[in-house]
């Protein structure tokens, strides 16, 4: 049976090095939840703690009501897809998929039925009697997937399952995994360092950095409202600008950018002083007034044009302008003025906490 996963204050240490600093997460039943972050952020470490392959130095792990800290790995009832698939090389496709069912002493006829069904779901039924060495990478991936979900685990774990596939196959497998997860409704925890993959596949994402969770949210929340500069920089492209909050009244902050541009930003709490703002390339636009700069480089990408603009103080900004919104193409060397959509940018105080609504 599928189950919710609750992690309270998980701590992992390797000698003097702390790999996880008290991570807490609530993963809902049937949810597709992704741990996203750069390499070394602790996402795989956390996944392996859930699986039972890493020791737990602190905190509590629950599947529903059951605390699983002291349950050995083979009794946790988890399906796992490994980065290198970990297909048993001496067993056929069928035998690989049946392995977990045999360990659960499922009736022989039932095993045959479920294995057949699982292989059909991942579209490799004709390969049932092949040996792993006769399979392509994508086919091995499907075997690994079928083997993990056929046991109807309470939780499905996936450790960068697509990283060994070529780009085209990766996109294809991504949608297969997503549709399968929807259909089976298994709580799934997915680890990746690829933000595009995470945005495309997840119900919710936890962005991790240096053993901490930086933000948890839906893909659109994380993209539109990054809660700290790390998330803003890691997910998508962001332009960062130093600024000053001059005053703050009635939930609106007056922000001065380099003394050249003043904007009003709706904020959730009062603050004055040094601040930092981040804006997506599509949230910046060319206007009659604003920050003066010069177009240094332009790349025509079909539905939009990407400009690199150098401000007078030397800082580079990236601006995307959709071709359907404008007829004018700015030339390299052209003097321009840049402005913001103040309601959609993110504003952070000196402690890197988000101020904007």
């Amino acid at each position: 049976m599928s189950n919710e996963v609750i992690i309270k204050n998980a701590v992992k240490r390797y000698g003097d090095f702390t790999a996880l600093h008290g991570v807490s997460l609530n993963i809902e039943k049937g949810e597709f939840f992704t741990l996203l972050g750069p390499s070394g952020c602790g996402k795989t470490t956390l996944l392996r703690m859930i699986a039972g392959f890493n020791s737990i130095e602190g905190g509590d792990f629950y599947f529903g009501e059951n605390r699983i800290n002291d349950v050995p790995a083979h009794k946790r009832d988890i399906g796992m897809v490994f980065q290198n698939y970990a297909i048993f090389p001496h067993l056929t496709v069928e035998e690989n998929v049946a392995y977990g069912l045999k360990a659960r002493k499922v009736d022989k006829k039932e095993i045959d039925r479920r294995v057949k069904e699982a292989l059909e779901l991942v579209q490799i039924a004709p390969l049932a009697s092949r040996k792993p060495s006769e399979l392509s990478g994508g086919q091995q991936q499907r075997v690994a997937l079928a083997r993990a979900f056929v046991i109807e685990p309470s939780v499905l774990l996936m450790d960068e399952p697509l990283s060994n596939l070529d780009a085209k196959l990766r996109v294809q497998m991504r949608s297969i995994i997503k549709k399968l997860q929807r259909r089976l409704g298994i709580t799934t925890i997915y680890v990746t360092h690829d933000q595009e993959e995470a945005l495309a596949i997840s119900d919710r994402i936890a962005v991790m950095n240096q053993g901490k969770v930086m933000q948890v949210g839906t893909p659109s929340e994380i993209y539109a409202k990054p809660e700290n500069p790390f998330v803003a920089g890691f997910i998508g492209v962001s332009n960062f600008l130093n600024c000053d909050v001059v005053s703050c009244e009635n939930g609106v902050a007056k922000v001065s950018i380099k003394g050249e541009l003043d904007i009003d930003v709706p904020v959730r709490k009062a603050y004055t002083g040094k601040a930092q703002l981040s804006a997506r390339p599509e949230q910046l636009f060319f206007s009659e007034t604003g920050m003066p700069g010069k177009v240094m480089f332009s790349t025509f990408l079909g539905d939009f044009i990407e400009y690199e603009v150098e401000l007078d103080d030397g800082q580079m900004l990236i601006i995307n302008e959709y071709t359907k919104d404008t007829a004018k193409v700015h030339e390299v060397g052209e003097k321009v003025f840049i402005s913001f959509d103040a309601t959609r940018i993110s504003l952070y105080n000196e402690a890197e906490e988000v101020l904007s609504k």
Partner: protein
Amino acid sequence: MTDRPRRKIKLDFWFFVKASVILALCLFIVYPFYTILTKSVFSSKVEGITLYNFQRFFTKKYYYRTLLRSLVICSFTTLFACIIGVFIAYVMTRYNVLGKNVLHVFIILSLMSPPFIGAYSWIVLLGRNGLITQALTAIGLPAPTIYGRNGIIFVFTLHLFPYVYLYTSGAMNSIDSSLEEAAENLGMNKLKRIMTITLPVVLPSILAGCIMVFMTCLADFGTPMLLGEGYTVLPVLVYNEYMSESATDPYMASALSVVIVACSMVMLALQKLVVEKKNYTMSTLRPPQETKLHGVKRFLASFPVYLVIFFALLPQIVVVCQSFVERSFSGVVQGINLNNYRAILKRLGQNIFNTYAFSLAAIVFIVILGILISYVLVRKKGKAATVIDTLIMFPYVIPGSVLGIGLIVAFNRKPLILVGTAAIMIISYVVRKLPYTVRSGSAFLYQMDPSVEEASINLGVSPMKTFFTMTARMMLPGIMSGAVLSWITCINELSSSIMLYSGKTSTIAVAIYQEVVRMSDGTAAALATILSVTTVISMLIVFRATKGKVKIV
């Protein structure tokens, strides 16, 4: 993952494995050697602890010249084996030598054949009544003698050059061809390319091969015993001091053993110092291309290789032929028949049975221990694994005869009397031949991704059951190819058997030695043929199983 002060020792299966392996290794390796060490500082002539034996060794010519002779023999053998091995490795990897795959198998076979059979065959050819000697004398030419220093070096070189060949050709095959192309591109001519790029890069492997040659030479007992005549080397002296009826001195024999082990240790330390520090890891994207030679050039490149391999295999051929020739006591040929085989079956059936029974028993232990120990070394790293890793390689520096003496002095008194039993023979085989299997098993396991085991555990199979049904099974190819090498060296084992055997536990190798000493050439040849045929069949099984990718070194 070191700093875990509160971590308790888990009393699980692996704790039990580690504890019993360490205990067994201490009992059968450390304790015997410790006994030798303590015996070496006593003497029947002086009271109390003394360095008398060592003082006598380094002052009396009778003793110290054996060390010098050993070093002379080892040095020259290593030099010649190096020249021949490197040359053949270069030609075989870079040119289209005719039938090179078969030649490769032949070279491995000549290494795997028991060394003393080589010595014996050359006696048949070049000994006092040797076939060639007689032929040359008949036409009035002086025949070269196989006895003494030069003979020993000659036989050793032909037997051991494969070590250098195997190490060097392995390294040469892993040089990316772009390395040499880069040198060519930068304007180096062919000879300079070999001298400045190829040789320096494979040098660590060449040295590793040379050290194997040196250590094997130093420890070998059979060849110098049969060929030495008056030219006594250190292992032969150990045997004489310990076994001969005239001058048995276990204290002196122990001191001599310590000297040999010290020499081996110096060599091993040298290896660590020189070889391991200068090892290059290369990513071979494009393996080196072989140059296609034609006509005379191809013949000129192939001929020396064929010549060396012919001489290396000649002993085997001679032995097989000789085994069908019946001779009278005076050496006159009586006929070509199977009488030699009838004679050994009648007289030495027990030896033949013992050889296979002991080796088989040893292999059962070696395979089981090999699987468990390889797993501990690769997957259960820690202090215990380091201790096991060190102890298990100890037999590399302890020559068989020394280990034999150690086992005798350690187990000829209560509480554990093993001398004269089959058990002590089997123990000595297990201890000495286990490293082959452990090395091959752990090398195999290193390439096996641990996630396969994790996948099994994750699917609900307990770690213990996963190990026995999945991991152990998948390790089997690596374990078996090592085990066959262990098996081959077990059936051909002489140097510790000759120390440990009793009337009932004698083996084929011991019998061959005794038959040769007794000048009973026909029966010795028949016995040697049995060993050779077993060796060849075993090797062919490994070649078939590993598709020719067997790792001897």
